[in-house]
């Protein structure tokens, strides 16, 4: 069995998270600073901030939803012994190549208060899920889900079953084996899937457009706003923010590559 040789200087997870946050904040700070120096593009902040903050909230929420459901279903698919696991994974993977407008269409069918399913949902929860931020979150979460699912399944399948057996001989019940052994050992793959899922959620366009409605101020995420600003002066600021976000996503995809090795 190969042990990772960690030296005393290896960072633990908390320190790594802190380092990443610092880098991200620095990146944003430098980016905006550069924009300001470059010619006061930051003057358009009032126009840009709305979509930017909305995208930030939507992506984080969608990432959380897709992450938890993805890990849970990935665990079931990895450990389960029932037939049709691969078919289920295929269904869950549909949003990867399904046209975003198809996703949007079916989401509207299920969530719109005008339909049977959507009407029922709205009556039961007292909340409307279309043409507001919730709709954007749902659309983005659906886009991110398959990446989280597949990465989680692969990572969990890759955990040495001997370690799980050893944990069982220690007397740990199955749920503790999952939480304290399997998932921590799979954390790299899961994190990589989460990052690419968030990148995907950030860039979601078609489904968000249909379910959210591109309402200025309420559901106009950054990816929608970029298009609307194409002919206006604030497009360069939009561009800058997008590039920053893409850089963060890039780092995530880069991590993805390394965790595959």
């Amino acid at each position: 069995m190969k042990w990772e040789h960690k030296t005393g200087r290896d960072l633990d997870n908390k320190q790594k998270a802190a380092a990443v946050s610092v880098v991200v904040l620095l990146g944003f700070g430098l980016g905006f600073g550069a924009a300001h120096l470059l010619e006061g593009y930051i003057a358009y902040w009032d126009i840009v901030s709305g979509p930017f903050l909305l995208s930030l909230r939507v992506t984080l929420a969608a990432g959380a939803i897709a992450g938890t459901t993805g890990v849970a279903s990935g665990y079931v698919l990895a450990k389960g012994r029932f037939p049709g696991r691969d078919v289920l994974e295929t269904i869950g993977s549909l949003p990867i190549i399904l046209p975003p407008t198809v996703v949007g269409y079916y989401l509207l069918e299920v969530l719109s208060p005008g339909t049977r399913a959507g009407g029922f949902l709205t009556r039961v929860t007292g909340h409307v899920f279309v043409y507001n931020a919730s709709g954007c979150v749902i659309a983005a979460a659906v886009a991110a889900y398959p990446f989280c699912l597949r990465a989680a399944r692969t990572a969990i399948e890759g955990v040495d079953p001997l370690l799980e057996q050893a944990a069982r001989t220690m007397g740990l019940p199955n749920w503790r084996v999952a939480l304290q052994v399997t998932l921590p050992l799979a954390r790299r793959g899961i994190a990589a899937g989460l990052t690419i899922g968030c990148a995907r959620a950030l860039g979601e366009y078609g489904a968000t457009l249909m379910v959210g409605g591109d309402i200025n101020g309420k559901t106009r995420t950054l990816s929608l706003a970029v298009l609307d600003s194409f002919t206006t002066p604030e497009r360069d600021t939009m561009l800058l923010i997008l590039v920053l976000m893409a850089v963060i996503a890039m780092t995530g995809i880069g991590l993805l590559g390394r965790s595959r090795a």
Partner: protein
Amino acid sequence: MTGLVPHSWLNWLGIPPWVWDPLSVSLHAAFEATIVVAIVGSALGFLLAKGRFLGRDAIETVLSLPMAFPPTVVGWYLLTQMGGPGPIRNAEVRLFGHPLTFTFNGIVIAQIIESFPYCLRFSRTAIAGVDPRFEQAARAMGLSRWRTALLVTLPLARRGLVAGVAMAFGRALGDFGATMIVAGSVPMATTMPIALYNAVFYGSHEQAMVLALVQLAVAFAILLGVSRLGKVRPW
């Protein structure tokens, strides 16, 4: 493309023109895009898998950017570079006689950019996953690098390579944001995803249902085929 199959046949089969037109545009564009992507993507995937040069991962990350960017940005860049003044537009005019925005070829290029990362990553994983001992045996038998690659590596990696091409094709078929921006809503260049959006936007419920179902079936078929090809996992 609509000239390929006579309308009388379509009517007999029960396929209305508002399905067949965007479907044929989508298929045609995706087909052309996938041919380019398959060749270039597999070749680059091979280089990335086998090469020993610095910055391999960085190159793959850069080429994978379209997965992270909103497709509208990709389309936007294509629009400005192909339509606005600049070296690319000049090259286009020289090569094609006119800029490619709002045309079919523009759509193809948008789809190439969007689907390229999928083929690239699948091929790299597939080729890197070939047991090096097979290649070593081939070299020991005296086969040159070229012949080893062609006769040993590629055939052994074929499942992953096919999966990559299939995913790229599916992605090209399913592209919406980039295609829409590059093509506008010119009827000649309406793809299936755009047609569905129009149907929903203009309230043609029946049409929307059919268009969505067709695309769902196609995507499902592609994914099922890819999963049958086995466990090639670039993510």
